[in-house]
Protein backbone atom coordinates (compact mmCIF):
# COMPACT_ATOMS: atom_id res chain seq x y z
CA UNK A 1 0.00 0.00 0.00
CA UNK A 2 1.36 3.29 -1.03
CA UNK A 3 1.05 5.97 1.56
CA UNK A 4 0.60 9.49 0.37
CA UNK A 5 2.80 11.81 2.34
CA UNK A 6 2.40 15.56 2.21
CA UNK A 7 4.82 17.19 -0.21
CA UNK A 8 7.70 18.94 1.49
CA UNK A 9 7.54 22.70 1.20
CA UNK A 10 10.46 23.84 -0.86
CA UNK A 11 11.21 27.53 -0.54
CA UNK A 12 10.73 29.32 -3.82
CA UNK A 13 14.04 30.96 -4.74
CA UNK A 14 12.14 33.53 -6.77
CA UNK A 15 9.96 34.57 -3.85
CA UNK A 16 11.36 37.57 -1.94
CA UNK A 17 11.70 35.56 1.27
CA UNK A 18 14.06 33.12 -0.43
CA UNK A 19 16.23 35.72 -2.11
CA UNK A 20 19.69 36.83 -1.13
CA UNK A 21 20.15 40.36 0.16
CA UNK A 22 21.95 41.48 -3.00
CA UNK A 23 19.12 40.22 -5.22
CA UNK A 24 16.51 41.87 -3.04
CA UNK A 25 18.38 45.16 -3.29
CA UNK A 26 18.62 44.80 -7.06
CA UNK A 27 14.88 44.20 -7.31
CA UNK A 28 14.05 47.00 -4.89
CA UNK A 29 16.13 49.43 -6.93
CA UNK A 30 13.86 48.70 -9.86
CA UNK A 31 10.86 49.64 -7.73
CA UNK A 32 9.88 46.12 -6.67
CA UNK A 33 8.08 46.85 -3.40
CA UNK A 34 7.60 43.21 -2.30
CA UNK A 35 11.38 42.84 -2.46
CA UNK A 36 11.84 45.94 -0.35
CA UNK A 37 9.15 44.70 2.03
CA UNK A 38 11.29 41.61 2.59
CA UNK A 39 14.34 43.77 3.30
CA UNK A 40 12.33 45.75 5.85
CA UNK A 41 11.20 42.53 7.54
CA UNK A 42 14.78 41.29 7.75
CA UNK A 43 16.20 44.36 9.42
CA UNK A 44 13.26 46.06 11.16
CA UNK A 45 14.00 44.63 14.59
CA UNK A 46 17.70 45.47 14.61
CA UNK A 47 17.15 48.97 13.28
CA UNK A 48 14.35 49.60 15.74
CA UNK A 49 16.45 48.31 18.66
CA UNK A 50 19.41 50.53 17.85
CA UNK A 51 17.23 53.61 17.57
CA UNK A 52 15.31 52.67 20.68
CA UNK A 53 18.49 52.29 22.75
CA UNK A 54 19.63 55.68 21.47
CA UNK A 55 16.39 57.54 22.13
CA UNK A 56 15.06 55.61 25.16
CA UNK A 57 11.61 56.16 23.73
CA UNK A 58 9.77 53.52 21.77
CA UNK A 59 7.36 55.85 19.94
CA UNK A 60 10.29 57.88 18.64
CA UNK A 61 12.13 54.68 17.76
CA UNK A 62 9.16 53.44 15.77
CA UNK A 63 8.78 56.71 13.85
CA UNK A 64 12.49 57.04 13.16
CA UNK A 65 12.83 53.43 12.07
CA UNK A 66 9.98 53.87 9.58
CA UNK A 67 11.51 57.10 8.29
CA UNK A 68 14.91 55.44 7.93
CA UNK A 69 13.44 52.67 5.79
CA UNK A 70 11.50 55.17 3.67
CA UNK A 71 14.58 57.30 3.15
CA UNK A 72 16.66 54.24 2.30
CA UNK A 73 14.13 53.25 -0.35
CA UNK A 74 14.14 56.67 -1.97
CA UNK A 75 17.95 56.78 -1.87
CA UNK A 76 18.46 53.23 -3.15
CA UNK A 77 19.61 54.57 -6.52
CA UNK A 78 22.54 56.24 -4.81
CA UNK A 79 23.54 52.99 -3.07
CA UNK A 80 26.75 52.05 -4.81
CA UNK A 81 27.29 48.73 -3.06
CA UNK A 82 30.57 49.82 -1.45
CA UNK A 83 29.32 48.30 1.80
CA UNK A 84 26.55 45.83 2.57
CA UNK A 85 22.99 47.07 2.35
CA UNK A 86 22.69 46.40 6.07
CA UNK A 87 25.61 48.70 6.95
CA UNK A 88 24.35 51.37 4.59
CA UNK A 89 20.85 51.16 6.08
CA UNK A 90 22.32 51.32 9.56
CA UNK A 91 24.21 54.48 8.64
CA UNK A 92 21.00 56.12 7.43
CA UNK A 93 19.17 55.14 10.62
CA UNK A 94 22.02 56.33 12.83
CA UNK A 95 22.34 59.69 11.07
CA UNK A 96 18.61 60.22 11.24
CA UNK A 97 18.63 59.40 14.94
CA UNK A 98 21.56 61.69 15.70
CA UNK A 99 19.88 64.57 13.85
CA UNK A 100 16.68 63.91 15.75
CA UNK A 101 18.49 63.84 19.09
CA UNK A 102 20.23 67.14 18.32
CA UNK A 103 16.89 68.77 17.62
CA UNK A 104 15.40 67.26 20.75
CA UNK A 105 18.37 68.24 22.90
CA UNK A 106 17.58 68.15 26.65
CA UNK A 107 13.96 67.22 26.09
CA UNK A 108 14.15 63.58 26.96
CA UNK A 109 11.03 61.72 27.76
CA UNK A 110 11.68 58.13 28.69
CA UNK A 111 9.07 55.81 27.29
CA UNK A 112 10.66 52.47 27.83
CA UNK A 113 9.74 49.06 26.59
CA UNK A 114 9.00 46.62 29.36
CA UNK A 115 11.76 44.29 30.37
CA UNK A 116 10.93 40.82 29.19
CA UNK A 117 10.30 37.89 31.47
CA UNK A 118 13.73 36.38 30.79
CA UNK A 119 15.47 39.20 32.62
CA UNK A 120 14.08 37.97 35.91
CA UNK A 121 15.73 34.62 35.29
CA UNK A 122 19.03 36.00 34.15
CA UNK A 123 21.48 35.12 36.94
CA UNK A 124 23.75 38.07 36.17
CA UNK A 125 20.85 40.45 36.32
CA UNK A 126 19.49 39.09 39.56
CA UNK A 127 22.96 39.22 41.05
CA UNK A 128 23.17 42.88 40.18
CA UNK A 129 19.78 43.65 41.64
CA UNK A 130 20.05 41.68 44.86
CA UNK A 131 23.74 41.34 45.62
CA UNK A 132 25.26 44.61 44.47
CA UNK A 133 22.68 46.84 46.02
CA UNK A 134 21.68 44.99 49.19
CA UNK A 135 20.70 48.12 51.08
CA UNK A 136 18.46 49.42 48.37
CA UNK A 137 15.27 47.90 47.19
CA UNK A 138 16.24 48.21 43.61
CA UNK A 139 13.94 46.46 41.23
CA UNK A 140 14.70 45.69 37.65
CA UNK A 141 12.49 48.52 36.47
CA UNK A 142 14.26 51.09 38.59
CA UNK A 143 17.60 49.79 37.41
CA UNK A 144 16.37 50.03 33.82
CA UNK A 145 15.30 53.64 34.36
CA UNK A 146 18.60 54.62 35.98
CA UNK A 147 20.55 52.93 33.24
CA UNK A 148 18.64 54.79 30.53
CA UNK A 149 19.00 58.08 32.35
CA UNK A 150 22.75 57.50 32.49
CA UNK A 151 22.89 56.62 28.80
CA UNK A 152 21.08 59.76 27.67
CA UNK A 153 23.68 61.83 29.52
CA UNK A 154 26.33 60.64 27.08
CA UNK A 155 26.95 62.52 23.86
CA UNK A 156 25.37 60.90 20.79
CA UNK A 157 28.59 59.40 19.34
CA UNK A 158 29.58 57.92 22.71
CA UNK A 159 26.12 56.56 23.35
CA UNK A 160 26.02 55.04 19.89
CA UNK A 161 29.29 53.19 20.41
CA UNK A 162 28.12 51.77 23.74
CA UNK A 163 24.76 50.73 22.30
CA UNK A 164 26.26 49.09 19.24
CA UNK A 165 29.07 47.32 21.10
CA UNK A 166 27.92 46.55 24.62
CA UNK A 167 24.20 46.23 24.01
CA UNK A 168 23.97 44.91 20.48
CA UNK A 169 27.27 43.09 20.41
CA UNK A 170 28.68 44.52 17.17
CA UNK A 171 32.41 44.44 16.54
CA UNK A 172 34.66 47.49 16.56
CA UNK A 173 35.16 47.11 12.82
CA UNK A 174 31.45 47.03 12.06
CA UNK A 175 30.88 50.10 14.22
CA UNK A 176 33.73 51.93 12.50
CA UNK A 177 32.10 51.21 9.16
CA UNK A 178 28.69 52.38 10.33
CA UNK A 179 30.06 55.53 11.93
CA UNK A 180 32.52 56.17 9.09
CA UNK A 181 35.50 56.55 11.40
CA UNK A 182 38.52 54.41 12.21
CA UNK A 183 38.65 51.57 14.70
CA UNK A 184 40.92 53.54 17.04
CA UNK A 185 38.28 56.24 17.35
CA UNK A 186 35.66 53.61 18.15
CA UNK A 187 37.86 52.10 20.86
CA UNK A 188 38.66 55.45 22.49
CA UNK A 189 35.00 56.52 22.40
CA UNK A 190 33.97 53.24 23.95
CA UNK A 191 36.54 53.59 26.73
CA UNK A 192 35.50 57.16 27.49
CA UNK A 193 31.79 56.31 27.39
CA UNK A 194 32.26 53.40 29.78
CA UNK A 195 34.20 55.60 32.17
CA UNK A 196 31.40 58.15 32.11
CA UNK A 197 28.76 55.50 32.68
CA UNK A 198 30.72 54.02 35.52
CA UNK A 199 30.65 57.40 37.20
CA UNK A 200 26.93 57.90 36.65
CA UNK A 201 26.05 54.41 37.87
CA UNK A 202 28.61 54.16 40.67
CA UNK A 203 26.10 53.29 43.36
CA UNK A 204 24.83 50.34 41.34
CA UNK A 205 28.27 49.06 40.56
CA UNK A 206 29.85 48.98 44.01
CA UNK A 207 31.52 45.68 44.69
Amino acid at each position, binding site marked *: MISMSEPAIVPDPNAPSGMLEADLVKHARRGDLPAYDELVRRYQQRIYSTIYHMTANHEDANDLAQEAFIKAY*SALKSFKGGSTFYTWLYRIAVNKTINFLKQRKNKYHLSLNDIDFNAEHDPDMMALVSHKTPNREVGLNELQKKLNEALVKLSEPHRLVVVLHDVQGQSHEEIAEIMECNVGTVRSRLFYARQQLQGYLAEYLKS
Partner: protein
Amino acid sequence: MKENEQNFDELKKLLQLKRHEIPPPGYFNNFSDKVVARIKAAEADHSGPAYDRLQSHAPWLARFIAMFEAKPSVIAGFATGLCLLLVLSVVLTEKAENATLSLSANMQNPMPQGMAMASLDTQILADGGGGIQVSTNPVSLQPVANLFGQQNPLLQPASFAH
Protein backbone atom coordinates in the same frame (compact mmCIF):
# COMPACT_ATOMS: atom_id res chain seq x y z
CA MET B 1 44.14 47.70 28.99
CA LYS B 2 43.32 44.31 30.48
CA GLU B 3 42.82 45.95 33.86
CA ASN B 4 40.46 48.46 32.32
CA GLU B 5 38.49 45.70 30.64
CA GLN B 6 38.11 43.97 34.00
CA ASN B 7 36.98 47.19 35.60
CA PHE B 8 34.15 47.43 33.13
CA ASP B 9 32.84 43.90 33.66
CA GLU B 10 30.12 44.99 36.07
CA LEU B 11 29.09 47.80 33.79
CA LYS B 12 28.89 45.46 30.81
CA LYS B 13 26.63 43.13 32.76
CA LEU B 14 24.42 46.05 33.69
CA LEU B 15 24.27 47.21 30.08
CA GLN B 16 23.09 43.77 29.08
CA LEU B 17 19.87 44.58 30.88
CA LYS B 18 19.08 46.68 27.82
CA ARG B 19 18.89 43.52 25.75
CA HIS B 20 15.80 42.56 27.72
CA GLU B 21 14.00 45.76 26.77
CA ILE B 22 12.07 44.49 23.83
CA PRO B 23 8.71 45.48 22.43
CA PRO B 24 5.76 43.17 23.08
CA PRO B 25 5.23 40.16 20.80
CA GLY B 26 3.56 41.08 17.53
CA TYR B 27 4.91 44.61 17.66
CA PHE B 28 6.54 44.25 14.23
CA ASN B 29 3.64 42.43 12.57
CA ASN B 30 2.49 45.46 10.63
CA PHE B 31 5.72 47.43 10.63
CA SER B 32 6.81 46.65 7.07
CA ASP B 33 3.23 47.11 5.81
CA LYS B 34 3.22 50.62 7.26
CA VAL B 35 6.57 51.41 5.64
CA VAL B 36 5.43 50.12 2.25
CA ALA B 37 2.10 51.97 2.56
CA ARG B 38 3.93 55.22 3.25
CA ILE B 39 6.22 54.64 0.27
CA LYS B 40 3.19 53.96 -1.97
CA ALA B 41 1.39 57.05 -0.69
CA ALA B 42 4.46 59.17 -1.37
CA GLU B 43 4.76 57.74 -4.88
CA ALA B 44 1.04 58.15 -5.55
CA ASP B 45 0.81 61.87 -4.96
CA HIS B 46 4.30 62.32 -6.42
CA SER B 47 5.08 64.68 -3.61
CA GLY B 48 7.37 62.34 -1.76
CA PRO B 49 9.84 63.86 0.61
CA ALA B 50 11.37 66.68 -1.39
CA TYR B 51 14.63 66.25 0.42
CA ASP B 52 14.88 62.62 -0.60
CA ARG B 53 14.22 63.48 -4.22
CA LEU B 54 16.78 66.22 -3.99
CA GLN B 55 19.26 63.73 -2.62
CA SER B 56 18.83 61.40 -5.54
CA HIS B 57 19.06 64.20 -8.14
CA ALA B 58 21.56 66.59 -6.57
CA PRO B 59 23.34 64.90 -3.68
CA TRP B 60 25.80 67.80 -3.28
CA LEU B 61 22.92 70.21 -2.65
CA ALA B 62 21.32 67.77 -0.24
CA ARG B 63 24.62 67.53 1.67
CA PHE B 64 24.81 71.34 1.78
CA ILE B 65 21.28 71.55 3.19
CA ALA B 66 22.05 68.76 5.64
CA MET B 67 24.84 70.92 7.05
CA PHE B 68 22.18 73.25 8.39
CA GLU B 69 20.02 70.58 9.95
CA ALA B 70 19.69 71.14 13.66
CA LYS B 71 22.63 73.54 13.73
CA PRO B 72 21.34 76.98 14.68
CA SER B 73 24.88 78.34 14.98
CA VAL B 74 25.67 77.38 11.39
CA ILE B 75 22.40 78.91 10.19
CA ALA B 76 23.11 82.12 12.14
CA GLY B 77 26.67 82.25 10.83
CA PHE B 78 25.54 81.74 7.26
CA ALA B 79 22.81 84.42 7.60
CA THR B 80 25.30 86.87 9.14
CA GLY B 81 27.74 86.20 6.34
CA LEU B 82 25.04 86.87 3.75
CA CYS B 83 24.07 90.15 5.45
CA LEU B 84 27.70 91.27 5.60
CA LEU B 85 28.10 90.43 1.94
CA LEU B 86 25.01 92.50 1.12
CA VAL B 87 26.20 95.50 3.15
CA LEU B 88 29.66 95.25 1.63
CA SER B 89 28.25 95.17 -1.89
CA VAL B 90 26.07 98.25 -1.18
CA VAL B 91 29.06 100.17 0.22
CA LEU B 92 31.27 99.21 -2.69
CA THR B 93 28.59 100.17 -5.20
CA GLU B 94 28.19 103.60 -3.59
CA LYS B 95 31.93 104.16 -3.60
CA ALA B 96 32.11 103.22 -7.25
CA GLU B 97 29.27 105.63 -8.10
CA ASN B 98 30.95 108.46 -6.20
CA ALA B 99 34.20 107.82 -8.01
CA THR B 100 32.42 107.94 -11.38
CA LEU B 101 30.65 111.20 -10.49
CA SER B 102 33.80 112.91 -9.33
CA LEU B 103 35.62 111.75 -12.45
CA SER B 104 32.94 113.21 -14.72
CA ALA B 105 32.90 116.42 -12.67
CA ASN B 106 36.64 116.75 -13.07
CA MET B 107 36.32 116.34 -16.79
CA GLN B 108 33.74 119.18 -16.97
CA ASN B 109 35.65 121.55 -14.71
CA PRO B 110 38.10 123.18 -17.12
CA MET B 111 35.45 124.20 -19.63
CA PRO B 112 32.59 126.22 -18.12
CA GLN B 113 30.89 126.28 -21.52
CA GLY B 114 27.48 125.45 -20.12
CA MET B 115 27.69 128.39 -17.83
CA ALA B 116 28.75 130.70 -20.67
CA MET B 117 25.76 129.58 -22.70
CA ALA B 118 23.46 130.18 -19.73
CA SER B 119 24.85 133.70 -19.40
CA LEU B 120 24.23 134.39 -23.05
CA ASP B 121 20.64 133.16 -22.82
CA THR B 122 19.83 135.28 -19.83
CA GLN B 123 21.31 138.33 -21.52
CA ILE B 124 19.11 137.82 -24.60
CA LEU B 125 16.07 137.48 -22.40
CA ALA B 126 16.99 140.60 -20.53
CA ASP B 127 17.48 142.57 -23.73
CA GLY B 128 14.13 141.54 -25.16
CA GLY B 129 12.29 141.91 -21.89
CA GLY B 130 12.10 145.69 -21.91
CA GLY B 131 14.07 146.48 -18.85
CA ILE B 132 13.01 143.56 -16.76
CA GLN B 133 15.78 142.44 -14.51
CA VAL B 134 16.27 138.74 -14.92
CA SER B 135 18.45 136.64 -12.81
CA THR B 136 19.09 132.96 -13.14
CA ASN B 137 20.81 132.87 -9.81
CA PRO B 138 18.77 130.85 -7.38
CA VAL B 139 19.57 131.44 -3.80
CA SER B 140 21.39 128.17 -3.50
CA LEU B 141 23.72 129.12 -6.30
CA GLN B 142 24.89 132.26 -4.59
CA PRO B 143 28.60 132.17 -3.94
CA VAL B 144 29.08 130.60 -0.60
CA ALA B 145 31.92 131.65 1.53
CA ASN B 146 33.60 128.44 2.31
CA LEU B 147 35.57 127.58 5.35
CA PHE B 148 38.89 128.35 3.73
CA GLY B 149 37.96 131.79 2.54
CA GLN B 150 38.05 130.84 -1.10
CA GLN B 151 35.18 130.98 -3.46
CA ASN B 152 34.02 127.89 -5.12
CA PRO B 153 35.17 128.22 -8.73
CA LEU B 154 32.20 126.17 -9.93
CA LEU B 155 29.67 128.67 -8.57
CA GLN B 156 29.92 131.93 -10.39
CA PRO B 157 27.30 134.67 -10.32
CA ALA B 158 25.12 134.86 -13.41
CA SER B 159 23.20 137.97 -12.65
CA PHE B 160 22.90 140.58 -15.31
CA ALA B 161 21.09 143.77 -14.63
CA HIS B 162 20.54 146.70 -16.94
